[in-house]
């Protein structure tokens, strides 16, 4: 885009190396870093299939093993309730590749190489998160395809269904920034790998798999106020898979869409500057 508008570079004699064009090009930098992640997936297409495995395994365990023994308040079909939960796993799992990727970049010196170049810090990280959202769009679409094939349906029309997917991808974008910050914080690939395991309990203490009404009080409090619960409730509302509100449901579950947007704004306001600052100052 900007490249196409730029005047053609004058021909230079063979062997004479070009010189770096100084000045600020944050958009071009972000696009290049986006390209880096997309190329990574293009060279290893198996990664996309691999990121489907975790939600599919959960679907098998909860939808077909535990699910037969779970009944919903209001008497809806459990698998209809569960399926949007599987979609949100795609969004929550954004923490893991971002954390591992950031730790890998630091550990292997790629972050140093980027930081020794005249590129915008926030653009560099933004490029990576945007690329991840693009890849996640593919993964989420495939996951929705699986759901449709198994008999799950969105009941509120295409517009609301697309809005639900938009919210899920927005949340994936948010979890990416959390992951980048944590990855830069630990700075070691092996440690990031270990920490990834913690994402699992984070997505369990929610309404993703079961409604929170039957949990002990303190656990229900954590689950009800877990941002993941708000996003799951918002997706269910838009897909038309919501269960009736429980007595004692707090504000975020009564108004899941504004709650989701508020959580996203809050988390980004915290983790975007933290991640950029950490990236800029690593090893200083």
């Amino acid at each position: 885009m900007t490249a196409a508008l730029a005047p053609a570079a004058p021909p230079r004699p063979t062997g004479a190396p070009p010189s770096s064009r100084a000045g600020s090009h944050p958009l071009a930098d972000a696009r290049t870093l986006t390209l880096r992640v997309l190329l990574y997936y293009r060279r290893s297409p198996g990664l996309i299939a691999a990121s489907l495995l975790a939600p599919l395994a959960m679907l098998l365990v909860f939808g077909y093993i535990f699910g037969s023994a779970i009944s919903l308040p209001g008497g809806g079909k459990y698998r209809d309730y569960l399926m949007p939960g599987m979609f949100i796993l795609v969004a929550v799992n954004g923490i893991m590749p971002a954390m591992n990727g950031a730790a890998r970049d630091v550990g292997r010196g790629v972050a140093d190489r980027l930081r020794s170049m005249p590129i915008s810090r926030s653009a560099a990280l933004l490029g990576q998160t945007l690329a991840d959202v693009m890849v996640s769009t593919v993964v989420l679409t495939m996951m929705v395809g699986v759901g449709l094939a198994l008999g799950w349906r969105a009941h509120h029309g295409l517009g609301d269904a697309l809005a639900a997917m938009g919210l899920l991808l927005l949340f994936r974008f948010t979890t990416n920034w959390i992951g980048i910050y944590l990855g830069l914080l630990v700075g070691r690939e092996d440690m990031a790998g270990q920490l990834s395991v913690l994402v699992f309990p984070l997505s369990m203490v929610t309404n993703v798999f079961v409604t929170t009404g039957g949990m002990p009080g303190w656990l229900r409090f954590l689950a009800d106020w877990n941002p993941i619960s708000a996003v799951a409730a918002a997706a269910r509302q838009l897909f038309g898979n919501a269960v009736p509100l429980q007595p004692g449901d707090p504000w975020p579950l009564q108004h899941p869409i504004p709650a989701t947007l508020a959580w996203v704004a809050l988390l980004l306001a915290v983790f975007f500057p933290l991640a950029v600052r950490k990236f800029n100052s690593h090893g200083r």
Partner: protein
Amino acid sequence: MSLPAVEVTDLHKRFGTTQALDGLELSVPPGTVCGLLGPNGAGKTTAVRVLATLAAPDSGQARVVGYDVVRQADEVRSRIGFAGQHAAVEEGLTGRDNLHLVGRLHHLGASGARQRATELLERFDLTEAADRLVRTYSGGMRRRLDLIASLVVRPPVLFLDEPTTGLDPRSRNDIWAIVRELVSDGTTVLLTTQYLDEADQLADDVVVVDHGRVIASGTPERLKSSIGTRVEVTLADLGQLDDAARVVASLAGGEPVLDPDTRSVSAVSEPGRRILLPQLVRELDAAGVAAQDVALGHPSLDDAFLALTGSRPAAVPASSDVPKETVTT
């Protein structure tokens, strides 16, 4: 006199309880190679990281082609190339992808970056491997690609942090050849190394660093001649090792090194003390020592280093692609 390519004045940097830089001074004239030589933890890497704008100094000043690395970091960044201790290339991409992306980050445009990647791959003999994932490259190829990535735009100043650590001799020679070629085109290179022969081979000036400050500097020749003559006597009979050591010690004035495996005695004479070959042979003969081989020569940079720091630098290791665990001191 023209502006120094790199100028460092009274640089201090502390990490926790470690004083990594303790008043470092450095001046590198344009178009030359400066070898920063020192043991592990001497502060070499920290010095290069400060110069490459990756670390902020606590006090003191560092300028690259006249720009301050703290206040004018972006000006510095668009004039330097940096290759750190790791091969900072993306393993999940091809060699061509890696160079292409670096070109785009230097704003050469999509086609400019692609063209430059192709040029570099041809020039540095990586065309065959260009479209393979870097994951399949040998350690030497990765370092070569990493070095080339810092040349996508020809920077006036290039920082190389231990560019050949862990490489086999052939790959080291490849890297050395690239550095020589750059310098002949006018690039200024500041490289850190633990290997004396590397500094000897590449550097116009060697700066010996220990505990974060400069303890000696000059041409490799001058450093070597600042200490005495190297004596080595190889014996026919192991039993005479002590006799030979006495003779060598009396002439050199220093403590000789005995090596029973090679039946040899060696020493470096005190500065200013000359040893002449006939005299050495005469005295060995008078002591009844049957010498198989007697050699006098310039001390190696190794000896110079020992004399200056009191410790041996790292030996050239066997080929190893294992990435180093420790970083940044």
